[in-house]
């Protein structure tokens, strides 16, 4: 049981970091209606930039910002390809993702880059004296509840909650600005927003850029948490991002922007929890993860529709019964 607690804790911890990536996917897939597959590449770009920077002695916080910028640039190229080069959206992303594989290898100079014994934003945070108090406080609370094994540190989770929520709030604000409204209209009615003097090309480029900036930021943080960057760590990332977005939307709704972005974060965490639980199942191993992810997406996509249809059916049956009763009532009277 206690081991379960630790792995759940890990799931939430990484879920919050992957949520930043999912927010990026939300920006393209949902806001811009641009199915961007650059993600698989730009996630690694973030990790690679962080890795090579840190190994070369650049402060981790600066390395993390560099990752964000690198992802932004990569996304801008995808946007350029699509808007100015008139290449189909899916194909633009696939081309960029393919190109990034080689670029990422060039950045890292090797397929795997270890950051063990190097400073990262996380171990720097942990080493701050005052923060030790937080750990003893929360772990004290847990052991009072009877837990035997305790999480190594709470600092990372708490810091990441703050960072991710900050990004969420910034996204919410951005999407409500004059520029942000125009960006959303691109995914909703492009012809209209162009007739309202918005430069849809440059907005799309910036939008895809921002999305991949977030993805790369997430990749950079995941690399620091795991202590390594790997050229293959982005494979299937787009599906994980989509899974998070879709699970979140299905569970928490999309009524407003604020709600939708919160749903995406929730979806990312729940996705990680599902994966962790699935791995506890005896006959499943890590290789099955992709299949499980695909199944999760399918379930999250299909179930709400089935439920909706069933609800409608029930409502109609009820209405009919009600009417029957009324008629019978009139007849007997």
């Amino acid at each position, binding site marked *: 049981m206690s081991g379960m607690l630790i792995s759940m804790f890990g799931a939430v911890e990484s879920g919050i970091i992957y949520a930043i990536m999912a927010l990026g996917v939300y920006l393209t897939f949902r806001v811009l209606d641009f199915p961007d597959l650059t993600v698989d590449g730009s996630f690694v770009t973030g990790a690679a930039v962080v890795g090579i920077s840190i190994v070369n002695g650049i402060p981790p916080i600066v390395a993390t910002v560099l990752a964000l910028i690198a992802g932004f640039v990569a996304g801008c190229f995808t946007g350029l390809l699509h808007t100015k080069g008139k290449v189909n959206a899916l194909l633009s992303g696939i081309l960029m993702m393919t190109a990034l594989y080689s670029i990422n290898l060039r950045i890292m100079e090797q397929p795997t880059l270890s950051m063990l014994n190097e400073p990262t934003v996380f171990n720097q945070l942990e080493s701050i004296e005052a923060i030790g108090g937080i750990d003893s406080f929360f772990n004290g609370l847990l052991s009072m509840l009877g837990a035997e094994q305790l999480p190594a540190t709470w600092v990372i989770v708490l810091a990441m909650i703050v960072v991710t929520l900050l990004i969420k709030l910034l996204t919410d604000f951005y999407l409500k600005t004059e520029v942000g409204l125009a960006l959303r*209209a691109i995914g*909703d009615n492009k012809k209209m*927003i162009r007739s309202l003097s918005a430069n849809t090309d440059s907005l799309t480029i910036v939008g895809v850029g921002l999305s991949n900036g977030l993805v790369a930021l997430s990749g950079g943080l995941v690399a620091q948490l795991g202590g390594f960057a790997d050229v293959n760590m982005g494979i299937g990332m787009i599906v994980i991002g989509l899974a998070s977005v879709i699970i979140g939307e299905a569970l928490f709704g999309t009524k407003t922007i604020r709600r939708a972005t919160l749903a995406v974060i929730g979806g990312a965490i729940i996705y990680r929890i599902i994966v962790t639980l699935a791995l506890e199942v005896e006959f499943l191993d890590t290789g099955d993860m992709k299949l499980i992810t695909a199944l999760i997406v399918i379930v999250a996509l299909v179930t709400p529709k089935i439920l909706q249809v069933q609800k409608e059916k029930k409502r109609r049956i009820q209405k009919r019964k009600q009417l029957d009763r009324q008629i019978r009532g009139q007849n007997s009277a």
Partner: protein
Amino acid sequence: MLNLKNISITFNEGTPDEKNALDDINLKLEQGEFITVIGSNGAGKSTLMNVISGNLIPDVGDVIIDGKQVIHLPEYKRSRFIGRVFQDPMAGTAPSMTIEENLAMAFSRTKKRKLRSGVTKKRKEMFREHLETLNLGLENRLTANVGFLSGGERQALSLLMTTFTEPNILLLDEHTAALDPSRAELITNLTEEVVRKSGLTTLMVTHNMQQALDLGSRLIMMDKGQIIFDVRGEEKQKLTLEDLLHEFQRIRGTKFKSDRVVLG
């Protein structure tokens, strides 16, 4: 205000589908003029609108607005001073965004968009006042998604979104054609009112000949990419439906042909 000089455009040149959609069009609009445009199917009316808005670039010719050549300005830049309402009620609004957000986007048409809140308290108040003029109760539904509105309501909102920022040139391409008669009348009345109140320079395509006669200060008739008839002022006021049909027959030697023409 708007000056079109020697505009020609040919689609699919050199193929069997070749179509000379605009054939040496010259047209000058004065400030505050309200022109109604009629013409048979395929006469080139929509093409003319698209050339003015920058959606299409003519093969030759100049588009001059307020003395400035704008032929090289892309559509989104020209829309700083040109407002459009489309035929399709779904085309002019963003369905999954709210009424106030749609109005906010329209409000930004004339300015550079910035990183500041699109819907502020002050703007909300202004949006509400403008919506009240429609008499559709939309002022109480500011945060409703536009996708939930009826076609007529959406078209009324589109018209408001286009006109409340007072564009230098207003282009209306059969913007009542997709609506049922009572809704069409509502939109027509709203159009007349706003054009008169703000003195907008307007070009309005319609298939309703009576409407073309009743509205506006000038009427042009197009056929086969040319302007074949152009009346204004008192002469237009006196014009009747019979005159119009007769005129077409006299110039073209055939009967006026249109699947959608509304005579009465």
